[in-house]
């Protein structure tokens, strides 16, 4: 994971720790499901890539994803949420139509840079 050397926090979206003045009394967490703020995508060393010609929208990947990272848009599979995908490869392995391929994260990042 890339880190900001100045304050040693992730630059991929993990917020800096709150000071005690910002924390509610009793340390209560008031925002249910706020782990969304913590992006586990930085753990990933392999990235799932879809072949949209092969995907039949069966959603088997969705039911087996441990991180709820398969995006569903308008009732259809719309790829992966890279903020949270840890790159385990279950979707790729279980896809009944072999539509998901795992590629190395560094290769995927390099490719994304070329496209830019």
């Amino acid at each position, binding site marked *: 994971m890339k880190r900001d050397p100045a304050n040693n926090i992730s630059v991929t979206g993990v917020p800096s720790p709150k000071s005690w003045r910002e924390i509610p009394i009793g340390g209560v967490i008031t925002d249910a499901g706020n782990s969304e*703020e913590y992006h586990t995508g930085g753990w990933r060393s392999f990235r799932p890539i879809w072949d949209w010609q092969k995907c039949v929208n069966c959603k088997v990947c969705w039911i087996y994803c441990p991180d709820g990272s398969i995006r569903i848009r308008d009732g259809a599979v719309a790829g992966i949420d890279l903020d949270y995908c840890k790159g385990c490869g279950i979707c790729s392995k279980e896809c009944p139509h072999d539509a998901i391929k795992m590629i190395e994260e560094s290769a995927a990042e390099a490719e994304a840079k070329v496209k830019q």
Partner: protein
Amino acid sequence: MVLNLEPISVERDLLAPGHRLCAGCAETIVVRQILHAVGEPVIVASSTGCLEVATSPYPYTSWRVPWIHSAFENAASTISGVETMYRALVKRGKIEDKGLKFVVFAGDGATYDIGLQFISGAMERGHRFLYVCLNNEAYMNTGIQRSSATPFGAWTTTSPVGKETPGKTQHRKDITAIFAAHNIPFVAQAAPHAWRDLMSKAKKAIAADGPSFINVIVPCQRGWRYAPGDTIELSRLAVDTCVWSLYEVVDGEWRLNYYPNPKKPVTDWLKSQGRFQHLLKPENKHVVDILQAEVDRQWTKLLERCKVS
């Protein structure tokens, strides 16, 4: 009960992403499936374990539903209290009955060992809740120590492999049968690869008038020593080798949900994981034979109970 992924997949997950469970962990696969099956309004209690630690590192929580954790052993007692308070407040007319559901997620350490008497007590008292055991067959959260759910011959840090012992020297206990013996309305065993079976069991369990128990096998890539992407494949293999059988006990009647054909040898199961690698050596063949005999014995017993020939 026919389940279809189309309508379910557009619902929001009740467990938020960003939790810190290992890549490829089956626990959240099971939790997501069960929470989609049960639906809101629901209150969840967890005992100490991987799921509890990884979904609630301060100041974060992954739970979009009310969630309570107090200690390792007492999730069943905690949910008993919550359920009783709810019933009492409804009875006194202080709150409206919204049909609240109560679910416990606990590991095998908390269920088989540490929390056994607490769960037994809660079931005997007849509280209306679903207890889900996420069974990864050892204390994985603290670094792979053996539990009474660990199978015979498996390596863990406290059942080492060497000249003296070939891994764990005891068979695991049949906790599902122990809870079936409590004569509660619904008891079942399930696995995450069979999501339709697991989700319909969760629906039946939550609809039962009384306590219910589902024991789910959750492959653990760190503790079992396999590649993270193989999680679902291992769940399938466990069922096909009869190491883990899918069945339910509804009001005392045993029903088999899946009959593997062909029934694969237990060596297929052992080959798939690092924790059993030592058993593949020729000098440990007798250990494999003992394990296969035990698996066959349990399977035959289950078929008799389910009246399947």
